[in-house]
């Protein structure tokens, strides 16, 4: 029995190795002077670590909220344009007034949503309980880079599914630690740092 499980683990490990090396061959190269591209590439790799290496499930509700608000705003505006096209100007005045005002209200809602609800959070990952009984633990990732600055700030916030207590851990490092001169992101240097942050946060949990 023992030798069978060992064989299965060995073959499973072999199967896992091949895809990851293929992915790492597709290097991530960005314009090193473009601050938002640099941050986005780092965020993408952090997301990849959470979903693939640690097998968490990504929760899209924040992004979906943003998409929904944008979609409503676009629909309002399109309706106004089409109505004005079908009923030339003076007749379409009331419809135009309503649509224009509500469009700009939606823009305001979107700005508030991004500013206060999202707060730089680019990923929400759910750690599903393997037995399916306990509620999920939530892992929130937040990051920002100040304009023209080179320091990448990453915050991982762990929320326990049971107690709803949160713990966080910060990372503040210059992006030069993971990018080379050509703007290539060296994932071999960055991914272990994410895993280390995750593990130290998870370890705190076990201590308590």
């Amino acid at each position, binding site marked *: 029995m023992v030798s069978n499980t060992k064989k299965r683990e060995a073959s499973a490990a072999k199967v896992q190795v091949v895809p990851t090396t293929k992915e790492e061959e597709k290097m991530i190269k960005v314009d090193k002077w473009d601050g938002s591209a640099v941050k986005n590439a780092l965020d993408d790799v952090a997301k990849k670590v959470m979903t693939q290496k640690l097998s968490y499930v990504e929760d899209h509700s924040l*992004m979906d909220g943003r*998409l929904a608000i944008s979609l409503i705003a*676009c629909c309002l*505006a*399109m309706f106004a344009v089409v109505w004005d096209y079908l009923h030339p100007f*003076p007749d379409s005045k009331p419809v135009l007034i309503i*649509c224009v005002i509500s469009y700009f209200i939606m823009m305001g809602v979107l700005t508030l949503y991004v500013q206060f609800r999202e707060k730089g959070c680019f990923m929400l990952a759910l750690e599903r309980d393997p037995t399916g009984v306990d509620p999920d633990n939530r892992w929130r990732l937040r990051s920002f880079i100040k304009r023209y600055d080179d320091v990448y700030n990453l915050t991982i916030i762990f929320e326990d599914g049971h107690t709803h207590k949160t713990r966080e851990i910060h990372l503040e490092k210059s992006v030069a630690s993971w990018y080379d001169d050509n703007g290539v992101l060296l994932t071999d240097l960055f991914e272990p740092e994410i895993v280390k942050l995750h593990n130290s946060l998870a370890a705190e949990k076990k201590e308590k």
Partner: protein
Amino acid sequence: MNLDFLDDVKRMNKRQLVYQVLNFGMIVLSALMIWKGLMVVTGSESPIVVVLSGSMEPAFHRGDLLFLTNYNQDPIRVGEIVVFKVDGRDIPIVHRVLKLHERDDGSVKFLTKGDNNAVDDRGLYAPGQLWLEKKDVVGRARGFVPYVGIVTILMNDYPKFKYAVLACLGIFVLIHRE
């Protein structure tokens, strides 16, 4: 051709791609909504026009941007500069009111002439039309910004330039992540 700039796009998941398209849509629609909003506020179907000819020199030159309002409460008077459209023609004309006839109920018939023209505008009106009416008026000129409208004239004279600029802007917005 170096297609590295598309790498960012390749790394986006479905939701981010949808958001990029919506973002592009919102930028275009914001401009449109501001224009429609101006239409409602000024009461004119074309609140900002560009002077296309030199027929109003020295007051307005080709390429000037004009801000119009079209309130019903303001009666048209001789000497005012109005922007009007002739039936059957799309292009608005910016000229000054020369003569005006007004009835008791407030309806008017008026004749216009460009300051820099030798004759009045009867040659420009539709065949058989001798006077303009309120319904032909797009608006009254209330303010202007010089020279800025030359860009619009250029873009209309060289449509390829216009499409190239719009295409570049569109691609940039679609590809660049916030």
